[in-house]
């Protein structure tokens, strides 16, 4: 995987290959597989996301009882047409919550990049495919773009809430999705990089403060902001708007913010929402072995 957008932009200049092909070629070398095998494997991930979306069960509740059923409420509001955000964004929001809830309820999901942020990419991509008529092949390429961005983030900063706070989970997923959407909108590597950077800038410093230490509150609903933020960032980038801070530097900033964040806000369940009276009460009511 590549450590900077700059490196990928250079390769694009020298070879004429697009972002997704550069990332796929790297997989072929690393995993000693053919281009077709690499593509099929990513397609498998996309289809696993789709199956997970379809397998949502509105009546399930998580073991703690904190999570379940909200995806159905969002779906009903969208069907009634009462959502100010409109039917497309409504669909994105609904899918993001559903996947987060499925994860909390021990259903099969695709960690992308983590289990806690597993709703962002499918919410964005499945909705685009369903509502805007993109082909399956284009979606798999977009997912490859997201993987490449995730690789840069993992190496320049982190994709672990315990190491970098929620910016490293929902933030990373949002940047990954933003780049994928920029690609679908016809953007080149520069547009992809700026979409990712714009998305990350909005979520820099996001605390990882899970109530009772569980991947439930606020994780499930944060998938919504990750997904919607990805779409607005991609739209901005597609409009020609650029991040004044270069993308690679944005992710360096993310790394330093992750370091500065206190431990209480890095998946320890000690600070933020977890430390509210209600959060503490939830923790105390939790069953142990």
């Amino acid at each position: 995987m590549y450590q900077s957008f700059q490196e990928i932009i250079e390769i694009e200049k020298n070879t004429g290959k697009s972002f997704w092909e550069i990332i796929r070629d790297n997989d072929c070398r690393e995993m000693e597989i053919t281009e077709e095998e690499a593509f099929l494997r990513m397609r498998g991930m996309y289809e696993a996301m789709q199956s997970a979306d379809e397998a949502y069960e509105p009546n399930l509740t998580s073991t703690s009882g904190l999570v379940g059923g909200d995806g159905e409420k969002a779906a009903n509001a969208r069907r009634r047409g009462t959502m100010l955000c409109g039917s497309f964004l409504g669909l994105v929001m609904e899918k993001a919550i559903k996947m987060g809830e499925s994860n909390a309820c021990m259903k099969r999901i695709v960690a992308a990049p983590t289990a806690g942020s597993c709703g962002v990419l499918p919410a964005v991509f499945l909705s685009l495919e369903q509502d805007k008529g993109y082909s399956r092949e284009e979606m798999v390429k977009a997912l490859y773009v997201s993987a490449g961005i995730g690789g840069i983030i993992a190496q320049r900063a982190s994709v672990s809430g315990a190491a970098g706070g929620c910016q490293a989970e929902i933030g990373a997923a949002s940047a990954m999705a933003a780049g994928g959407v920029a690609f679908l909108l016809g953007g080149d590597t520069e547009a992809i990089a700026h979409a990712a950077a714009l998305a990350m800038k909005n979520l820099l410093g996001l605390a990882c403060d899970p109530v009772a230490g569980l991947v439930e509150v606020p994780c499930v609903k944060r998938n919504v902001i990750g997904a919607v933020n990805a779409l607005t960032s991609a739209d901005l980038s597609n409009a020609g708007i650029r991040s004044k801070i270069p993308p690679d530097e944005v992710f360096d900033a993310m790394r330093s913010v992750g370091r500065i964040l206190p431990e209480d806000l890095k998946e320890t369940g000690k600070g933020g929402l977890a430390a509210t009276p209600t959060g503490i009460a939830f923790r105390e009511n939790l069953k142990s072995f």
Partner: protein
Amino acid sequence: MNSFDIIGPVMVGPSSSHTAGAVKIGNISRKLLGVPVQKADIFFHGSFLATGKGHGTDRALIAGLLGFAVDDSRIPDSFRYAHEADMDYRLSGIDLGDVHPNSVKLLLQGEGQRKIEIVAASTGGGAIRVTEIDGLPANFSGDYPTLVVNNLDQPGHVTEITSMLSHKSINIATMQLYRSSKGGNAVIILECDQEVPENAIKWLAHLEGILKVTYLGLADRYTSKL
């Protein structure tokens, strides 16, 4: 690093460390025991103890002991499958001291009175490490074919094992030696680049001074193929 370290794994939620990692620990422990698990005494430590119930760590670990993969939809119902498989289990808490917060200790018993005691940790993103076997230290991930030899602490056993591996054209990736005391019980752990054949393992097990040979092959993966 490749794209599927970022997009993936396909897993049963909610947590890569507390759920998928726990399945892997169960899986590796089952393979280290070498026979189906009949009795399991499981002790959760630290964060596993504090938030394990809410993360399904208990069900994930039992699923792993039953040989389920990390993306197996039966994981939430693993207690029922354990019952059907006649697997007895007991879950409780423990303070293992200064170890990784996501640690668990397992006392396993299987067919033929075969027993093993394992301490393992889920170190993040679904990665795990076995940190203790039968009271002696260990440090391996289960990502490689791994040979664990319990022997008496006496000269020659390392040579016997390494010459056998050389003879079978097996490259050693890492090697660890630990002992309880001079001349006492020792353990040799080798992570290899190739699989170790069954006849070689049997040959080792019958050597004088070798107490037990445990082998962890790559035969079954934690995530089913897509």
